Structure formats: C-alpha cells, structure tokens
C-alpha cells in the first residue's frame, strides 16, 4: 500500500512537472531570420522571444494539442494548432502584413485626401484652408496636378477632358447635379459643404471598375459616420450667413445646416462688369441623419435642398444692349446608404440616391424650363478572404428622365428623354507580397436608350521598388453616354469612350511626397454635329476622336520649414480632339498646355493665425481668330493669380477669416468673342472676355457654441 501510494504520487509529480521543449526558427518570406518575434503557446505562460538568428527555445509543462503563436510587428500573426510533440525544431515563416503604411498601394491615377489614406496629398484641413479655394472642395483639388485651370467655369477639368467627364459620388452613390448653376463666365461652386466629409479620393484616371459613366475622372467623397459632439454653429459673412446644429443620441445623430447667400451688398460695394438686375441669392439647407444598428450596420440619410436665382445682362459683341440671362433653380438631393458587416468576412454596401432639379432659364427672349429627375440604386458585396485577397462585386441602376420646354416669340418645343443604364462590376484585389499588388476588374453596362452593351476591363499593378519608392501602372476602358444636350435631340448614338494608360512613380519619405505620372488617353466615338450649336435639326454622328497625353508632377513637403507646409504641382498636357462641330482636330479651348500651382501655409504661433497663399499659373488657352482663318489656332494670354488667406483664432470658439483672390489684380483673359459680321474695314471686331471682377474679397466670422470650449469651425472655412 505504502509503495503503491508512493509510486502514484511520484508519477503524479512527474507528470505535473514533465517538461517538453519547444524550439525552432522564425523567418520571413525571403528566409531572413526575424529577431524579437514573440513565440508562445496560447493560453499558457510559456513562451519567449527569438534571438538575432531568429531562433527560440522554451520549456513547457503542458501536453497534448496546443496552439503555437508567433507574432511580430509588421508581420501577420502565425498560429498553428497541433500536438506539442510536433513543435520541436519547427520553422515558422511569417507573412508580411500588407496593411502597414510601408506596404505597396495600388494608386496609379489616384490622390487621397483625409486621414484615412496611407499617403495623403491633401490633409483634411487643406480642403478648406487653401487660399483661393473659398471653402469649395473643388477649389483645393484644382491645386493638384492633372487638373486644368478654367477660371470662368469653376468645375473640374481633368487631363484634357471636359467638366462633364468627371463624376462625383458620395458614399458610393452618384451626385447628379454637384454644382450650383451659374451664368456664363462666372465660376460654378460645388453644392456639397466640405465639412461633411472625412475622406476624399480623387482619381485622375485608371479608376476602379466600381465606377462608370465617367470618361476622365471620379471624385469619391465619404461622409462622416459619427459627429463628435452636439453643437451650434453661426457664421456671418460678407456674402450671407449660415446656421448649423448637431444633435446626438445614443445610436443616432442629426446635423442640420442652413445658409442664406445674397451678393447684393457686395456688388453694391464692388461693382463688377455685369449689369445685375437681381444679384445671386440662394437659400439652402442640408440635413444628415445617421443611425447605428446593434450589429455594426450604419444607415446614413443625407438630404439637401437649395434654391437660387439671379438675373443679369452680360456684354455681347453682337448685341449692343448685351444679353439678358436670368435663372431660377431649385434642387433636391437625397442620398441614403447602408453598410454592414455580415458573417464570414462578407460586407454589404447598398444605397439609393435621388435628385430633382428644375431650372427656369431666361436667355435673351427665350424661356427654357429644364426638369431632371435622376436616381441611382446600387448594391455591392465585399468578401475578405484574407488581408491579401479581396473580392468586390455588385450591380447598379441609373435612371434619368429629362424634359425641356423651349419657348420664344416664334417657336415652342418640348423634348424628353429617358436615359437608363444597368451595370454590374466585379473586381479583385490581390497582394502577392508586401511589394507587389494588383487590382483587376471588369464592368459591364447596358444602356436602354442606346440599346448598347459595353464591357470595360480595368487593371492596375503596383510594385514597391525600395523602402520609399514604388512604381504603378494602370490600364482601363471607360464609357459614357453622350450628354443630355445631344440625347434630347437624338438617340441614334453609341457611348463615347476612352482608353487610359498610366505609369506612376511615387517617393514618400518623412512627410515628403514626390509623385510623377505619365499618361496617354485615347478618345473614340465622340459625338459630332454639323451646325454652330447642337440643334434639333443638326445631323449627329459618333465619328469624333481625340487624344490627351501628358505628365503630372506633385511635390509636397511638410517638414523642411518649421510650422510651414507647402505643395507644388505641375501638369503638362498635349491634347487634341475632333468632336462637336470641329472642322478639324484641334486643342479644345478649355485645355492649357502648362498648369502649375504652389500652395504655402504657415502657422504663426504668436499671432494665433494661419497665413496662407496660393499661386496658380496656366498657359494661354486656344481661340479662333476669324481674321486669320484657321480653327483654334491662336493662343490667349496666360493666367496668373495670387491668392492669400488669413485665419485668426480670436478664441478657441471664434474665428475671423479673411481671403482675397487674385490679390495683385492681374488682368486675366478668359477668351475672346468675335463679331458675327465684319466691320467697315472688313475686320471682325472682338471683345475680350475677362473675369467678372479681378479680385474677390471674403470676410467671415465663425462662432461655435458647444459644451466643449475647444471646438471651432476652422474645418468649416
């Protein structure tokens, strides 16, 4: 009995203290030993770190099946469940973590702004504090390479494409009328307020198969998921005032912004070269409601309503009294999106956007009423197989109904069109390693109006050549239905198309970014017609074509000069097209060969102020001089503008903001208008089209009222 007990006890003790040795080596994918990796048995205290040769060895008293974990910073964590006996002299190969900042990114053609991106060309504050941008997010993007300065238009012109070749999306849903309407030669402004967004992706070409109906460019805006606090915001400006309020509840929040803009007092003080009968007046309101479901699902409903009107007479060389132009516009936009994470690493994003836009235009003696109703429905799924392999696919439907009534003294006509498009896409993201990644996608679209099916393949590759540098390539086919301006008269068209080829080099080091991108774009099937303007009686065809090629360079430095950040952009563009009513292939009048900008911001601690300036240069654009013959063969004077801004933080909650565009008052030329008939000497007279005013002043006072005394509207400017 005694011996038995003793034996049992010894056995028990033995098994209690039995030790096995776990040992091996941790290496990376190239076979290089990893030092300092943490190797341990999950759920136990047994483990160690690897030495400089990647070797480890430790004792354990556990037995049977265990899970061995190896983790190290910037590698994916390794885990292996097996019998402990198999954990001696084991070789563990750790995979690079492709989600780290130093991993390759597929980015040809794309700029990111906001803090959600690995490499940010523009920071959140830049969107609103860039001199000359005047709180319009489009203004800040125009300091990036690839854009052309078209001062009298205000919209985005990308790489030889016109403004309608760029589409804007909010939370994946299309924005149908992103710009407020404006008169000829007065720049349009974006309707969306910049402070609603936390991330902006601006693609100047070669973008994802998820987006279509854009020949040149897409601008993707992501709205804020959750506001940080309740507050009331008041702004008083030289051009009007605004009022905003944010309320938060446990799971939901509501933000409302209203604004009233009236340029009458400003135009009294600083008359411009237009004769205003009714200066621009607009009333607008937006509201965002967000609801968070228990299961991580997020619903966002954004609604905006605005109405604007103005009436003016503009100079015209063929009309002694000028041409009268009046406009009343109202616009309603609703964007509802829902995203959720599903089981097994699936996620879903779906939404509906709807726009109703009504414009009553008075042009000379004609009255034109345009009504556009558009809707976008979308559903997309994402499957996250691993951090190295993702699949994204979905379907969407665009519906547009457009009606126009044209009435003048001797003519009345109604036009209507339905332009509906069904499309679907599938795309995959593959990381072969931390250095090499690709995105491959394909998009199919069917247009009910044109009864045409198109297929657009897209491909991007990126290769990290060194610690700080990477090369990327992109190729894609892009289709877009002809503009409503033509579709309202004829539907005997096929979609216009482009092919993009892009090569990109990027160097990023310690708050410095250098980027150079070369591209070639080939346009096909562009719409042509045979009259001075697109008319119901014109003969239309799809035989137009064109090309654009160029080089975009970007440099940003946030570190060399203390408290100062600056960036420089340069774009070289060589483009010609034969479209619309062009008699021959020519460089369009919106494209300038050289575009450059420099933006500098400095924070002056002692003054509690941010001072900034920006300088924009664009080489002269083309025009036709009937006295010389030829078509778009002449070149106008170059464009120069120096803008300054100054933001003074009176207290954390009160800000005074001053801004002057074109402070030097440089006399810029937007183009020339020639008389229809020659004068007595047999010469066509011309009128120089200059900006409505050389300078623009803006003074605003912004006041935030919240529980928290530190919040301000700096992000609102």
């Amino acid at each position: 009995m005694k011996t038995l007990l003793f034996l049992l006890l010894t056995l028990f003790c033995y098994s209690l203290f039995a030790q096995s040795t776990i040992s091996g080596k941790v290496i990376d994918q190239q076979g290089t030993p990893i030092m300092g990796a943490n190797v341990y048995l999950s759920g136990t205290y047994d483990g160690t770190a690897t030495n400089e040769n990647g070797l480890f060895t430790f004792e354990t008293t556990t037995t049977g099946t265990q899970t061995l974990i190896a983790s190290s910073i910037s590698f994916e964590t390794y885990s292996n469940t097996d019998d402990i006996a198999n954990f001696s002299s084991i070789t563990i190969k750790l995979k690079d973590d492709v989600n780290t900042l130093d991993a390759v990114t597929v980015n040809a053609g794309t700029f990111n702004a906001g803090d959600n991106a690995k490499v940010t060309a523009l920071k959140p504050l830049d969107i609103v504090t860039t001199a000359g941008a005047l709180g319009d997010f489009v203004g800040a993007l125009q300091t990036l390479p690839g854009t052309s300065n078209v001062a009298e238009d205000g919209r985005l012109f990308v790489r030889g494409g016109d403004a309608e070749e760029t589409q804007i999306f909010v939370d994946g849903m299309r924005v149908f009328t992103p710009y407020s309407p404006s008169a000829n030669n007065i720049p349009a402004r974006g309707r969306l307020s910049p402070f609603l967004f936390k991330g902006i992706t601006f693609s100047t070409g070669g973008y994802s198969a998820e987006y279509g109906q854009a020949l040149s460019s897409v601008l993707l805006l992501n709205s804020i998921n959750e506001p940080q606090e309740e507050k009331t915001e008041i702004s008083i400006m030289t051009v009007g005032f605004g009022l905003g309020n944010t309320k938060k509840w446990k799971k939901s929040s509501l933000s409302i912004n209203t604004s009233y803009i009236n340029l009458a007092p400003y135009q009294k003080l600083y008359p411009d070269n237009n004769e205003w009968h009714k200066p621009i007046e607009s009333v607008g309101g937006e509201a965002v409601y967000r609801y968070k479901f228990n299961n991580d699902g997020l619903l966002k409903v954004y609604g905006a309503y605005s109405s604007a009107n103005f009436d003016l007479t503009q100079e015209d060389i063929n009309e002694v009294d000028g041409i009268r132009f009046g406009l009343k516009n109202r616009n309603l936009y609703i964007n509802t999106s829902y995203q959720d994470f599903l089981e097994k690493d699936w996620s879903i994003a779906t939404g509906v956007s709807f726009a109703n836009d009504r414009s009553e235009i008075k042009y000379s003696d004609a009255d034109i009423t345009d009504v556009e109703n558009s809707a976008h429905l979308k559903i997309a799924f994402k499957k996250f197989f691993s951090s190295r392999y993702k699949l994204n696919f979905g379907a969407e439907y665009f519906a547009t109904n457009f009606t126009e009534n044209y009435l003048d003294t001797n003519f009345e006509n109604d036009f209507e069109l339905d332009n509906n498009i069904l499309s679907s896409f599938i795309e995959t993201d593959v990381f072969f390693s931390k250095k090499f990644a690709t995105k491959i996608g394909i998009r199919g679209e069917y247009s009910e109006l044109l009864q045409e099916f198109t297929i657009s393949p897209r491909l991007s590759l990126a290769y990290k050549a060194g610690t700080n540098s990477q090369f990327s390539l992109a190729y894609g086919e892009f289709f877009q239905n002809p503009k409503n301006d033509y579709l309202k008269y004829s539907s005997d068209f096929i979609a216009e198309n482009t092919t993009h080829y892009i090569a990109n080099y990027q160097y990023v080091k310690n708050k410095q970014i250098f980027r150079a991108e070369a591209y070639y774009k080939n346009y096909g099937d562009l719409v042509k017609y045979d009259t001075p303007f697109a008319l119901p009686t014109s003969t239309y065809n799809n035989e137009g074509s064109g090309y654009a090629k160029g080089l975009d360079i970007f440099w940003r430095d946030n570190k060399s000069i203390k408290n100062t950040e600056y960036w420089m952009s340069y774009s070289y563009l060589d483009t010609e097209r034969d479209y619309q009513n062009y008699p021959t292939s020519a460089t369009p009048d919106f494209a300038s060969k050289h575009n450059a900008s420099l933006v500098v911001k400095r924070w002056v601690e002692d003054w509690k102020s941010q001072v900034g300036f920006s300088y924009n240069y664009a080489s002269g654009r083309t025009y036709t001089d009937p006295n010389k013959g030829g078509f778009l063969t002449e070149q106008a004077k170059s464009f120069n503008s120096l803008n300054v801004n100054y933001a003074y933080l009176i207290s954390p909650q009160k800000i005074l903001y001053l801004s002057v565009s074109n402070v030097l008052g440089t006399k810029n030329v937007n183009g020339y208008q020639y008389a229809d008939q020659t004068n007595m000497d047999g010469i066509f007279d011309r009128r120089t089209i200059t900006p409505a005013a050389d300078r623009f002043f803006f003074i605003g006072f912004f006041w935030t009222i919240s529980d928290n005394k530190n919040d301000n509207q700096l992000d609102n400017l």
Partner: protein
Amino acid sequence: MKSVLLIATFIFTLSISAQTPYEKGMNDAFALWEQQKNTEAVQLFERIASAETDNWLPAYYAGLIEIVSSFGLKDEALLTSKLTRAKGFLDNASAISKDNPEIMISYALLNTAYIAFDGAKYGMTLSGENIAIYQKAQAIAPNNPRVLLGKTEWDMGTAKFFGKSIAPYCEDIERAIILFNEEEQTIPYYPYSGLERANEISSNCKKETSPN
C-alpha cells in the same frame, strides 16, 4: 504513510507560498518595463493576456507600453504599426472590461500619439474624438483621478495653444491630487499611478501663476 503525508503537505505548502503564474508573469513584465525593455515587456504581457482571458490588465499594459514608446518616433510607418498593434490590445482589453475609464483614457493617449506626430493630418478628427472620450469617461467615473488628470492636461494643452491662462485648470490638478490620495488601492496591478505626474504639473502651476 507518514512520509507520504509529509511530502504531500510540503508540495501543498509550496504551491501556496509560491507566486501564482499570473503574479510571476506580471512582476516579470513590470520589471522588464522598468528596465526599458519595452518590446520584451509587451511580449510578456501579450503572453499573459493569452492565458488570462478574462483579465483586462495584461492586454491593457501591452497596449499602453506600445503607445508610450511611440511618442517621439520619426518614422510614420513604424508609428502606425505600433499604434495599430496597441489599438488591437486595447480592443481586446475593452472587450473583457466594457466602459472601463482606464482603457478609455488610453485610447485618448493613443490618439494623442498620432496628433503629436502630425497635428495637421490627425488633429482635426482625433482631437474631437479625445474630447468625447474624456467627457464620457468623466461621466462614468467622476472621481477617477487619472481621468481628471488626463482631461485637465488635454485642456491645458489647448489653453496654452491659444495663449490662455492655465490657472483655472490648476484647481482641477489640485482636486486630482486629493482624489489620488483618497483612492483605495485594492486591486493588484491596477494602474493606480499618476500622482507623481499630477504633483509635477501642480508645481509648474504654482511657478507660472504665482506673482513674482
């Protein structure tokens, strides 16, 4: 039989008087941290966390060390790697202990590490987040001295930035010191620290606000 009993008793007593593996692990980890062996300390806390699945402290400390050691880094890739890892640890800790003010203010510290690296890039979104964190933490634990200290330091930073007097915040620091002294330290390894820091700020307060 007698000797068997003796041995059995001996083993039993041994296991009582000896440290539990948890205590040994935590003591070793703190020792490593004290010796500035941050990586080793994080690794040990990570291993303890894997064994103590219902205790938030080891994961909390693993995260905290990653955050503290990322201040002053110049390489953004390394900074984000470390802070992403830290966030993972804090997420694990708060999954075990929900609405824990100590973990909440560590998230604020994590945000501060990003803001300290590049204010223009991260300041706009993260400073608002921090304010919200401190407000929530204060509502949950109005008498937690570390929450009060963290919030006051944050407010002082803002006041200094705007050239405002920090004097009103010095009262909060004094109140934090009282709270630190009143705090009953009952949970082993709980992060009770912070009094020294509060005293340090308090003495700066006295220097800056006292009339010369």
